[in-house]
């Protein structure tokens, strides 16, 4: 960087020397402006990365929604012949105002077979009471799912868990697992393992008595 020396004479001798780097002020300002923006960009990148990592960790450590919590949103594409309300695709919001019994099952699951008849019979009992039974086949091979539904004469709406999206959202730990969702979309009861008639009747009766949203 070049410099200039300005001499102020006093009794023939320079008494003061002010050294000013040529054009130092504008370049310096530009440089500090650049540095400031670089730092802002760097911090923005770091914060974004941390947020992304945090989100990933939260997703990994997410826990199953429990009783008293709103039921997470999902949508389903039903098996042919197992639609709900003549729709081949539906979501939880469409079902708002009804009691929803969301049952995760699989054709390879031995315990699911223990509750299959019970769920079908209960569905038939409450068919006129605004209770929707929805079976979701978890990690199952479609032809096997259909064979299972035929084998147990199941008539309530059923759908595959495409991309395991629903089971991931509900953080299920296995099958069978059943979520009882109230008319207001809040989970009333979570059943891990096979259901029994007493529990089903008790929870459904309670939910039917509640005011809907």
């Amino acid at each position: 960087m070049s410099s200039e020396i300005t001499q102020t004479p006093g009794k023939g001798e320079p008494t003061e020397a002010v050294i000013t780097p040529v054009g130092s002020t504008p370049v310096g300002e530009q440089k500090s402006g650049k540095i400031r923006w670089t730092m802002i960009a760097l911090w923005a990148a770091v914060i974004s990365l941390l947020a992304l990592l945090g989100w990933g960790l939260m997703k990994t450590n997410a826990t199953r929604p429990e009783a008293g919590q709103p039921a997470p949103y999902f949508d389903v594409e039903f098996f042919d012949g197992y639609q709900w309300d003549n729709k081949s695709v539906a979501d939880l919001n469409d079902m708002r105002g009804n009691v929803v019994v969301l049952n995760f099952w699989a054709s390879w699951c031995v315990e699911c077979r223990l509750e299959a008849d019970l769920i079908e019979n209960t569905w038939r009992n409450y068919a006129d009471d605004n209770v929707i039974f929805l079976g979701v086949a978890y990690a199952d091979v479609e032809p096997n799912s259909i064979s299972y539904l035929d084998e147990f004469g199941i008539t309530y709406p059923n759908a595959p868990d495409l991309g395991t999206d629903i089971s991931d959202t509900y953080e299920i730990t296995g099958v069978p697992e059943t979520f009882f969702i109230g008319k207001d979309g809040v989970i009333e009861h979570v059943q891990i393992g096979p259901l029994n008639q007493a529990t089903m009747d008790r929870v459904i009766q309670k939910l039917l008595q509640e005011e809907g949203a």
Partner: protein
Amino acid sequence: MRKNNRLLQMFLIVLVLALSAVSAVAQDDSQNRTVTDDEVNEIARDVYCPVCENTPLDVCQTQACADWRELIRTKLASGESKQDIFDYFARQYGDGVLANPPRRGVSLVMLWVLPVVLILLGLLLFSRYMRGLRVSEPDTAVASGPNSAMTIPPEVSQPAPDDYLARVEKELKRTDE
């Protein structure tokens, strides 16, 4: 001549029929060929069991995995490629069941973009740090006056403190006297 033409026509018809029959048989054969366990396992080892964590399909003993292996066998027998089968599993059961998930969505960001961004960020910070070290090293500036080429220590280019200036002026006055 007319008879010859008729014979040629008949020959061509028979040839076309024979070729289509051979092609149909060949196609049918390729779509219903016997698939060996090795072929199934070659794909199954890159797919994870949906029930047991971190267990590849080829060694898992659960019924779910047996069903999935059978599904792979059926798809191979019907002529689907390895990639077709991986795509089917990803679509049906999620990217998480694949040992090498496709580079898209969150996995693209977490496995590919994030490390590259972090490395670039690290390099940038490192270069800035190194540049900072260089700037803070003692430097000398050369005055470019018309008659002088004197070397000015860096501290001269900084504004001198008031008491220092006062002292210099005092010394200069004393020398003048």
